[in-house]
């Protein structure tokens, strides 16, 4: 999306480029984003699913129908389970995606639980292939976030806060401005850390931004807020607000 916007700004007519196809993975994206990418870059945009533990990209891939990703079943077995009981769920029912590798000689994995939520179908695809198709990931079993392609767990944020003597009451706000994800971490001010000079507070915020950058790999915006600001649910702070709505729950 960023490339498309940049091309437009630079006055490049993408219709005249020899690009035909783009393969997009590594983070969740929506059908709306597909349409926008296909339009701005004048290509067909295909979804790919993969994960580092299995083989990286290439576990499942869309065909020209763009109706689910065909799992490469000659190399991988996919199962969908109920994450609580571990039992299989029928086709079309949401559950945790589980993979086993058949042909990997080094680092084989049996029934590897991805913590991604999805659905599968064994119906024959209009393209003629009979490989099982999986949906886009529809969410996570855990609280992992994917921001700008980087996997992020709230526990990583907590480690930094503890080390820097900051309050454990924080909130992660993920949004998308234009084509790029933005991430903000709001942290409640602790009385002992409060200086009544604004420059001191801004300095603390900048320091924390850099600490997060080295711990997470991405630099969030840090905002110190007053203790009544972060909403509580059943006494606990609400940790994550994801305004991107990248998981299309059907």
């Amino acid at each position, binding site marked *: 999306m960023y490339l498309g916007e940049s091309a437009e700004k630079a006055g490049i007519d993408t219709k005249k480029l020899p690009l035909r196809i783009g393969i997009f993975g590594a983070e969740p994206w929506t059908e709306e984003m597909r349409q926008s990418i296909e339009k701005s870059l004048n290509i067909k945009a295909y979804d790919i699913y993969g994960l580092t533990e299995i083989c990286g990209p290439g576990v499942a891939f869309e065909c020209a129908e763009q109706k689910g990703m065909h799992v490469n079943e000659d190399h991988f077995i996919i199962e969908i389970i109920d994450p609580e009981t571990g039992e299989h769920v029928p086709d079309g029912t949401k559950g945790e995606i589980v993979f086993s590798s058949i042909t990997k000689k080094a680092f084989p994995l049996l029934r590897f639980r991805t913590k991604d939520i999805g659905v599968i179908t064994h119906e024959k695809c209009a393209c003629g292939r009979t490989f099982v198709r999986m949906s886009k990931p529809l969410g996570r079993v855990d609280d992992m976030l994917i921001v700008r392609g980087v996997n992020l767990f709230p526990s990583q944020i907590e480690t930094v806060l503890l080390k820097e003597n900051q309050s454990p009451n924080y909130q992660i706000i993920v949004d998308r401005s234009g084509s790029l994800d933005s991430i903000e971490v709001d942290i409640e*001010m*602790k*009385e002992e850390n*409060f200086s*009544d*000079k*604004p420059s001191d*507070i*801004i300095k603390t915020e900048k320091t924390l931004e850099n600490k997060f950058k080295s711990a997470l790999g991405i630099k969030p915006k840090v*905002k*110190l*807020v*007053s*203790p*009544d*600001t972060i909403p509580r649910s059943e006494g606990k702070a609400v940790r994550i607000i994801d305004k991107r709505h990248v998981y299309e729950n059907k």
Partner: protein
Amino acid sequence: MIKQISIFVTNKPGQIVKISDALSKENINIRAMCVADTQDFGIIRLIVSDPQKAKEAISSNKCIVRITNVVGIKIPDKPGSTKQSLELLSINGINIDYMYAFVTRSKDYAYFVMRVEDPESAEKILEESGVELITQEEIENL
């Protein structure tokens, strides 16, 4: 030396209302107020009739409060007196982090509150040159 209370607030409507409401319920009078703001947060600084009680009242409203020692001076309410008193500090290399002024019913004096790194030595310099300092007691009885 006088006591100032500083309150950290998120930059959104209703914050000063909330604080002044907490103070009014405790029958605490605000003598002077100064608000420092940035895009995301603000710091409200107050001189009040009873700083300790004010801190408790505001803290119980889930606000971050701190009491700091500041220098208060009382200068003749006429042109040139600000320059005269502040010059003493600059000559002696004392930097003012921030300051604000207030007036009272008295027509003869204007009041200044200033935050400096070392309030004791600032007070000493001012006092030796005849600048009138405000005491905490005076604030309480204003």
